[in-house]
């Protein structure tokens, strides 16, 4: 029990010192002490957002919306396929109610041809069919989405949503954002040191689906006011920020251009009015469509629609041939810039709602570190005083073990690149308590054994041996609690669990193994016949 050959002592010292040294860069960073250059890339503890300041935002997409959009685009594809068939397949009575697409064939004889046309749509890209096709009453075709098909669609939408979110946040120029998929339909966004969380939310809160549609010149103002549109038209409200907020516009549903043909967007100023605008560039195809649309409709108004709201509805004064255009609509420099970022990053395939936000200002975080540090310092000092006053020399060993324990936890956290959070600081305090408890158990046992008349070495040996059992069991149960805390906890609470778990291992090592080595070395060197404990 008290036998420590040289190799064992060396191993213990080296591992203790190496792990403790790993803590130095983190401590320097926490206390704002400059470090020599060669330590710049040394592993460091990450500070949680509650200590560093920053925003944690949880976004959620609604799978029902993905299903709805998928249904719409399938309807469009279906119409196209039927129209392109040779000879054309005439259809009528199209409905997308109840999440299903159904339509009537004018001639029941076309059933097999229609089925052939739709075969690619039904099979999709995967192994399992994305749609299920039924024929009712001989001429009504019904497409029902399969579960597999829906899952694939949500998965695809989420993957591209993460990409769009990443592009938008990168455009903000913030440092080291973390963007992670969570579960089936959520995205976690963490941005350290963010000054303005509202800007971030504004940027992520819009789908940025841009459309150009011709204004329906035949629509009567009275009809528009009542929300009644001519066939082939629809009523779209003006955006709240625009000059015509509260009013509506009637626009043609078909024949417009979508924003997915954009290749660029920048904030700039209108040359005549000097107001902030967004300049956009189309890809060759989109540019050609835009040139055609503007040429055919000179003198007509067209609506610029963003997320189903009209931003502005200017007139095509002349054909726009260069493949670029500008959007005006009561922007400030900031909102124009925001829109430009959103357009550049592409439209989100699905709306994302902010379902959780945790933001901490940088001042508060720094303040927490200072206060937590002071409290930890005072607490540790009191613990040390108490231990030394109670156990004398053995208390000093426990103290040294405690200091190595804290350093090793920090070192391991740095090495594993884990995150220190505010509750993590409380975890430290609890770990200090638990570590000392191991020593208290051992030392009390040694006291008892001495009282029963055992000789020094035997008492120390029995003390370590008998106490170890309870220490082991106690740490195992704490470990179980810590693991559950980690599994079920979120964000900062996980930080508490991480410190607790790492602390369990290091405290057994330092409080049991290290102190035993020190005590053994002292006993060997001095061979005392009496100990103060």
């Amino acid at each position: 029990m008290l036998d420590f050959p040289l190799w064992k002592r060396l191993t213990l010292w080296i591992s203790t010192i190496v792990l403790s040294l790993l803590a130095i860069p983190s401590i320097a960073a926490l206390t704002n002490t400059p470090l020599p250059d060669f330590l710049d890339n040394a592993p460091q503890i990450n500070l949680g957002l509650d200590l560093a300041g920053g925003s944690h935002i949880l976004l959620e997409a609604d799978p029902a919306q993905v299903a709805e959009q998928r249904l719409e685009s399938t309807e469009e594809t279906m119409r196209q396929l039927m129209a392109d068939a040779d000879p054309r397949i005439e259809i009528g009575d199209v409905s997308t109610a109840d999440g299903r697409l159904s339509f009537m064939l004018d001639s029941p004889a076309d059933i097999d041809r229609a089925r052939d046309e739709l075969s690619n749509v039904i099979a999709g890209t995967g192994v399992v069919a994305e749609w299920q096709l039924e024929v009712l009453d001989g001429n009504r075709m019904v497409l029902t989405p399969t579960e597999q098909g829906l899952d694939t669609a949500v998965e695809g939408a989420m993957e591209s949503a993460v990409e769009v979110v990443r592009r938008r946040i990168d455009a903000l120029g913030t440092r080291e954002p973390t963007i992670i998929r969570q579960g089936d339909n959520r995205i976690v966004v963490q941005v350290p040191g963010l000054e303005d969380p509202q800007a971030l939310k504004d940027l992520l809160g819009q789908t940025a689906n841009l459309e150009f549609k011709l204004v329906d010149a035949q629509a009567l103002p009275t009809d528009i006011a009542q929300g009644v549109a001519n066939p082939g038209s629809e009523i779209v409200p003006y955006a709240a920020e625009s000059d015509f907020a509260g009013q509506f516009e009637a626009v043609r549903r078909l024949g417009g251009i979508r924003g997915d043909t954009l290749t660029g967007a920048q904030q700039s100023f209108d040359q005549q009015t000097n107001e902030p605008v967004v300049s956009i560039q189309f890809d060759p195809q989109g540019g050609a469509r835009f040139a055609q649309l503007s040429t055919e409709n000179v003198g007509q108004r067209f609506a610029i629609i963003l997320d189903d709201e009209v931003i502005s509805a200017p007139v095509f004064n002349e054909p726009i041939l260069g493949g670029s255009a500008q959007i005006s609509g009561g922007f400030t420099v900031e909102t124009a810039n925001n829109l430009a970022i959103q357009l550049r990053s592409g439209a989100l395939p699905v709306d994302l709602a902010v379902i959780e936000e945790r933001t901490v200002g940088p001042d508060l975080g720094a303040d927490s570190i200072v206060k937590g540090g002071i409290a930890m310092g005072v607490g540790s000092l009191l613990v040390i005083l108490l231990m030394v006053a109670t156990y004398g020399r053995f208390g000093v060993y426990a103290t040294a073990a405690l200091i190595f324990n804290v350093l090793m936890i920090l070192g391991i956290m740095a090495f594993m690149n884990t995150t220190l959070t505010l509750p993590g600081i409380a975890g430290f305090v609890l770990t200090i308590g638990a570590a000392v408890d191991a020593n208290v158990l051992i030392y009390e046992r040694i006291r008892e054994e001495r009282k029963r008349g055992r000789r020094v070495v035997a008492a120390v040996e029995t003390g370590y041996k008998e106490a170890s059992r309870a220490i082991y069991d106690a740490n195992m149960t704490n470990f179980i609690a810590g693991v559950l805390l980690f599994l079920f906890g979120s964000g900062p609470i996980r930080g508490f669990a991480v410190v607790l778990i790492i602390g369990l291992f290091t405290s057994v090592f330092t409080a049991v193994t290290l102190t035993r080595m020190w005590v053994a070395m002292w006993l060997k060197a001095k061979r005392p016949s009496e100990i103060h404990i």
Partner: protein
Amino acid sequence: MKLLKLVPDDTNIKFLKWRMPFYVVSLLLIAASWALVLTKGLNYGVDFAGGQEITGTFEQEAEAPVGELRETLSTLDYGEPVIQRFGEANQVSIRVRLPDDVSGDPAAANRISEEIISTVTAAHADFRVDSNNTVSGKVSGEFRSTALYALLAAMLAISLYIWIRFEWQFGVGALFALFHDVSLTLGMFALFQLEFSLQIIAAILAIIGYSLNDTIVIYDRIRENLKKYRKMPVPELLDLSVNETLARTVMTSLTLLVALVPLLLFGPASLFGLVAAITLGIFVGTYSSVYMAAPILIWLGVTGDSFVPQETLADRQDRKARGEV
């Protein structure tokens, strides 16, 4: 140098003498706690109820205008906002629960948070938002269920472990002690309507861990003494075990307290709830280890012979051969 001794060497307190009254009181307390939790309910914070908690500083003022703020925000019609000093005199925390009718709308919490911040900053240009937690009804519901699972899973897993390492009676005893600790902590939060948040769940799990530490140390000693003193009556043996470990119990509780109290006094305000709950839990946990976990062993039929392995025929023949029978 004379060393400090918190517990005199020959301490022999008859703890178990009072086990019946303490048991009655504790059972009543557990019942009362649950009655409180079920009738009065827990004062769920933002994590569990949904809504927002905003802390901020009035940079130009010495003292936060709490009353005025309350008036301004009550016009927003989100029920009674909870507005409190938080940390320094010019800092406040504003807590608004998500109204029930919008708890299903994922974006509602976010809208309300924006409205509150803009209302406060419109009235006080010097208001700086230090932190903002906005939790939608969806997420808070998930937090509630996962927190519940975490607590139940921890209690069961730990008891199972004790059962495996010790005997089933000890597992039951540990489970009962844990149930006691968790119940009383919840009861306390219900009685004083303290904010119940995710941090408190962390605190309760820490209390569970700590209470178990105590229980295990005492159990380990009981097991040892059961083997050592086969003929000793069990209540006496339990007293002996508790007394033998008393010095350790006191010392450990004290070191934890001296580490936690500075955190209560000088630590960041946002840690206060977590640390306060753990501090209270140390007392509850220590008490339950002595008065709940130990005496229950008597009723569960633990005796000096309980854990002696059954003698096989071969063992008996061995003993016969040695002339012991």
